């Protein structure tokens, strides 16, 4: 068996179902960054029955506030931020079609229930490894909320971006299993 599975965005539910927590994945395609303030705005738009500036259908959100790009690079260091801070907004985004999320750390029971309901997946990536992860980002485009600076939504074109399945579509949770060594 290969050490990891490769998947490409957009991700259909069919692609996500076989993934089990603990599996290593390499991602190709697009990751949309969004963290605290972008989540608050998206949740407000959805609560007001308004359209989001981009479609979440079968897309992946990456909890990340990248460093500015030094000359000649697509982006600076761009590792994951704490996912738990996005928990309050996540069920609404899953209802809007989001297929998966990338971040670090535990999720709330409500988020895990919503993940199961929508047959979505929560991935973790390498915590605190922003330099290494930036090597997997080939291009960056501003999508919306440009006034938020690092907290705006950017589309990252990624290649072989390393992920670990943290919560799978059946609710299997790597963090729950970790303590029971």
């Amino acid at each position, binding site marked *: 068996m290969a050490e990891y599975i490769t998947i490409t965005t957009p991700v259909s539910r069919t692609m996500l179902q076989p993934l089990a927590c603990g599996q290593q994945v390499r991602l190709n395609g697009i990751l949309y960054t969004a963290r605290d303030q972008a989540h608050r705005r998206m949740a407000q738009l959805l609560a007001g029955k308004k359209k989001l500036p981009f479609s979440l259908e079968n897309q992946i959100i990456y909890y990340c506030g990248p*460093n500015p*790009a030094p000359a000649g690079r697509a982006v600076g260091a761009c590792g994951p931020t704490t996912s738990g801070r996005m928990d309050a907004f996540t069920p609404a985004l899953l209802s809007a079609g989001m297929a998966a999320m990338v971040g670090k750390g535990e999720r709330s029971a409500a988020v895990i229930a919503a993940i199961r309901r929508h047959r979505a997946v929560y991935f973790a990536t390498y915590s*605190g490894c*922003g330099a290494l992860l930036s090597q997997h980002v080939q291009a960056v485009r501003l999508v919306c909320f440009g006034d938020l600076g690092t907290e705006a939504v950017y589309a990252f074109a990624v290649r072989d971006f390393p992920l670990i399945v943290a919560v799978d579509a059946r609710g299997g949770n*790597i963090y729950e299993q*970790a303590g029971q060594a």
Partner: protein
Amino acid sequence: MRVIAARTVRDAVERLVLEANTRLRPDVRAALQTAAAREKKKIGRAMLHAVAENARVAARERLAICQDTGLPVVFAEIGHRVAVAEPLVELIKRAAAAAYRRYFFRASIQPDPLRREKKMSYFPGVVHIDIVRGERLRLWLLPKGFGCENKSQLRMFNPTAPLAEVENFIVESVRSAGASACPPFVVGVGIGGTQDCAALLAKKSLLRRLNVRNRDQWLAGLEERLLRRINALGVGPFGFGGSTTALGVAVLEQPTHIAGLPVAVNISCHALRSAQAII
């Protein structure tokens, strides 16, 4: 009286900002290597290798080790026979902000913590000043990310609290920090003084190199015991499980009041960054 030019301080701070953010401390790199050799879980070993590779990429490409380049925390020790040509705290804060901008590190400072309507800023970091004997100025810069800073804790114990209660509090602080604070951690513990002193000692203890033992034998024993208990928690690298939950525990203490026992725990992620300059 020795007078140090503002320019000299500015240059030193700029150097520290680049070094601390792009070069993982040699003692941390060595501890990661040792941990990777000992880690019992396969996924844990794989994650420790990723951390080591990240440090290599950051140094080679002059990239930030972590995108959370933190709040720059500076500890300054100024000799009693030294004068700096400009107000030192302001000088350090301005120099750090300029260097963060110059090296493309993220502006992570929110000027208005409650209303949060202002734009992210590079200014100001945090500066702690101590006046010591001599004619040198020593600076340590510790960029502190908030994934781990958010998990720091403080408790005011009764002076009669059994030691086991204090130890349990420290170990539980680490357990509750969990995966989102980026384990394996370095755990800084500050004991004594007043509430504010304990918190400062906990932060300052992170400056001690991981390969240096506590000079107090009894405290060194306490640190080793705490480290064993923390690594038995099973949190592991990135929280995916394993025998490496912390790389080290460092305790600093100072005298306190007969009625109290302040204990602070400051958690550092595996990207424990600091650099020092002596002027």
